[in-house]
Structure formats: structure tokens, C-alpha cells
């Protein structure tokens, strides 16, 4: 996403069962991205920024906070359905994000009932491994 992109919608959108968000592909994650999220999101778990701590904990290196890529996915969802139309957003972390990883975010409407769309979301890395599975509901123009 970049400046100049269309603004997210204010009003509920006319989404239907099967509609898909245009996939969002991230840039490669860097250690600096993790440190930046520590500062902006308040997560100072050393496993995400301290190489020695991460290795001592049995990890090959530091990895990204789930709330970093969940936040990015949430923002992508907000751009699609409108930030003020989201009623539920829930995610299960299924894999880790390592420095250099590139994620693809996808979202798809799986049903619409009483003006509320059920949405399934996912994040996969460059090898096709699942990083996150999510569900959301959003007000839509039924």
C-alpha cells in the first residue's frame, strides 16, 4: 500500500459471498521492522529483537511479533471493507515470520447474513507456509 492509494471506504460496501480482496504482498520483513513494531506497539519481548535471547530460547534468530503481521492484515482488511465497518477480527498464529520473509495476505467473503459479512483471511510466506488464519465480520451494504 502506498500514498496515493484510494482511501478506505466509509460506508458499508456491497460485498457478496465469494468476493475476494485483492491479495496484498508485503516487502521482505527486516529486523528493523520488528524493532519498529516494538516501539510503536509496545512489545518488548526480547525474543523479537535480541539475537542472543532468541538463540538461547532455541530459535534460529529473532522473529516478528504476530501482532505486527496481524496488524498489517487488519489494516488491509480495513482498506477493503472500511475501518469503521469491522465488527470482529480474530486470528490464530500458525507460523513464524523470519527476517527476509515475504507474506501474501488474502481475504474472502464466505457468507452474508443480515448485513454482516463473514470473512476468512490468511497469510502465507514465500514458500506457501501458513503464517496466520483469521476470521472477521464486517457490515456490508446488503
Amino acid at each position, binding site marked *: 500500500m502506498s500514498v496515493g492509494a484510494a482511501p478506505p471506504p466509509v460506508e458499508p460496501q456491497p460485498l457478496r459471498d465469494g468476493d475476494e480482496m485483492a491479495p496484498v504482498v508485503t516487502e521482505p520483513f527486516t529486523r528493523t521492522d520488528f524493532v519498529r513494531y516494538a516501539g*510503536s506497539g*509496545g512489545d518488548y519481548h526480547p525474543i523479537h529483537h535480541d539475537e542472543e535471547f532468541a538463540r538461547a530460547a532455541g530459535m534460529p534468530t529473532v522473529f516478528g511479533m504476530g501482532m505486527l503481521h496481524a496488524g498489517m492484515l487488519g*489494516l488491509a482488511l480495513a482498506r477493503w471493507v472500511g475501518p469503521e465497518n469491522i465488527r*470482529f*477480527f480474530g486470528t490464530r498464529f500458525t507460523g513464524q515470520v523470519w527476517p527476509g520473509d515475504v507474506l501474501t495476505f488474502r481475504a474472502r467473503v464466505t457468507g452474508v447474513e443480515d448485513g454482516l459479512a463473514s470473512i476468512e483471511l490468511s497469510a502465507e510466506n514465500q514458500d506457501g507456509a501458513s503464517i496466520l488464519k483469521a476470521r472477521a465480520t464486517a457490515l456490508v451494504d446488503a
Partner: protein
Amino acid sequence: MLFLYDAAMGAESEAMSGALDSVRFPVERSKLMELARTFKDPDPLWHDPEAAAEAGFDSVPVPPTATVLADHWRERGATFHAQAAGLDLPRVLHGEVSWEFLRPVQLGDELTAVSSLAGDETRQGKRGGEMRLVTVETSYTDAAGELVARRRDTLIETGPR
């Protein structure tokens, strides 16, 4: 070791059953700007009232995960709940998180986040060894006392290596 720690008041008090902490925090411009940039979306509408108005919003909208801003008002940040629940930090993973919104969170909200321990169970891990799963529930109320959102986190402590 569970206790109620009110960061805004700087006071500790007797714990209710399962209470973790209560923290009051502002949904403020600078942190929203930082958060959106961290999420690689530098669009000013995520923090600037003029840009948001230009895009048709009555108030500045926020990312759905913006309640993380409460963590800045916790002495030990986002890891506080895991530590308060007695989990061993090097073995802690974030398993799940979800939010239910009763109304959108907006710039200028002054929210109070009240967290409690909602579950604590031990399960057999997929790769052998025991996993401990701790569930934390947090409610967010605004300055008028209205419930704005509920959040639920699952923290996983993997077995000893």
C-alpha cells in the same frame, strides 16, 4: 501471582479472582501515525483529522489492532500479562487474538482496558511435552463508561526443552 495493578493510579490493590490489570490510555495521534507506518501504510488519514475528513470520515479511523496502544501504559509492555500469569518468557508464544467491536475505536478515545485471566489449562503438545494455554480477556470502555470493544488472547507456554 496475580494482582491488580492500576498503572494510571500507580497503585496496587487486592486482586479480584483472575484480575490482571486495569490501564487507562489515550488513542493518540503520534502513536497512530507510528503504528500505521510500522504497518507500511503511510496514508495520513490514519492519524490526521484533516486527511480523514477529506476521505469522508467524521473522525480519524484506526487499524483494528489499535488497542495494543494500551501496552505502552503497562510498565513491562505487551509481555506484562504473560509475566503476571507466571509464564516463562523464552517459551511464550502468542497463539490467538481476537477483537469484538461494539463501536469503532477512534482518535481521541480515552479507553480503560481491564484484563482478567479467563483460562489456564495444560495440554499435550503436538511434538510431545506439555503446553500451557493461558487465556486473557480484556474489555475496553470509553470515558463515558460505554463498552467499546472486547479482546481475547491465548498465550502458549511450550514445554521445557
